[in-house]
């Protein structure tokens, strides 16, 4: 399945079909990260949210700033 991940085309393996699986696939499940799918925030208790073909996924975090 192909999605757009942080603005870039990204091919997912067959066994990745939820936000949780995507985080694990990207090795981000233990990081501080916020997930948006098609401009909707996916709250932490909803990580079974499905990832579908052509979804626009954003992975967001905190960086240094004033």
């Amino acid at each position, binding site marked *: 399945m192909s999605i757009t*991940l*942080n*603005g*870039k085309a990204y091919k997912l393996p067959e066994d990745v079909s939820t936000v949780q699986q995507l985080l694990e696939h*990207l*090795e*981000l499940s233990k*990081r*501080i*990260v*916020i997930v*948006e799918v098609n401009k909707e*925030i*996916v*709250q*932490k208790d909803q990580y079974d949210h499905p990832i579908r073909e052509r979804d626009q996924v*954003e*992975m*967001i*975090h*905190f*960086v*240094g*700033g*004033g």
Partner: protein
Amino acid sequence: MSMLKIGDKTFQSRLLLGTGKYPSFEIQKEAVRVSDAEILTFAVRRMNVFEPSQPNFLEMLDLSKYTLLPNTAGATTAEEAVRTAKLAKASGLCDMIKVEIIGCDRTLLPDPVETLRASEKLLAEGFTVLTYTSDDVVLARRLEELGVHAVMPGASPIGSGRGILNPLNLKFIIEQSSVPVIIDAGIGSPKDAVYAMELGADAVLLNTAVSGAKDPIKMAEAMKLAIEAGRLGFEAGRIEERDYAVASSPLEGLLPS
């Protein structure tokens, strides 16, 4: 020294420290530690998911010790700021937000209309709202009337280090305000921080003054001390200024010549 109260939280430290542009994570960690700051600002950005091994400063902190104050920097409209704030809150790590909506790329001065709109929307969403604003006295009052939890007027343009350019406006804002006034942006050296606190500011938010100093760790401590000195001086109540001298030693019992 009295405590700082923002929303329903209370703080010992009156220094809010930004986390941008330090020479290294090691220096930054030490600067944060010696500053005694309890509130740290962050920006919300896309992750580099293609290189997830990159270190992240926030993940190095003991988050039980700090209150996170994410900003909406990068937003140019109220709607973008609300999106950023909601993303930050979805981390489950914070419910405070620094509204920062830049309206001019050259001066980085805030857009007053979008800033007001964003503050209103975020208050309706239940955020603890700290709003970065210019030193406009009436805008500060309008923000307070909306119910923001702190107004944060700039001393001078972000990162300029020019210090307090309009102490009179800041004084007016402080005098009229019933919510904390945090002087945010433009602080260059400890004297600026002392001055801000002596004017009666409740706190100071700074970043570049520390991160850009030759020795950020020393400067973090200097700023901490400056803010404490300024606050103590304000609480103590300074003497009135006069044009002519007033002798400190008694005029009675002068020795005969």
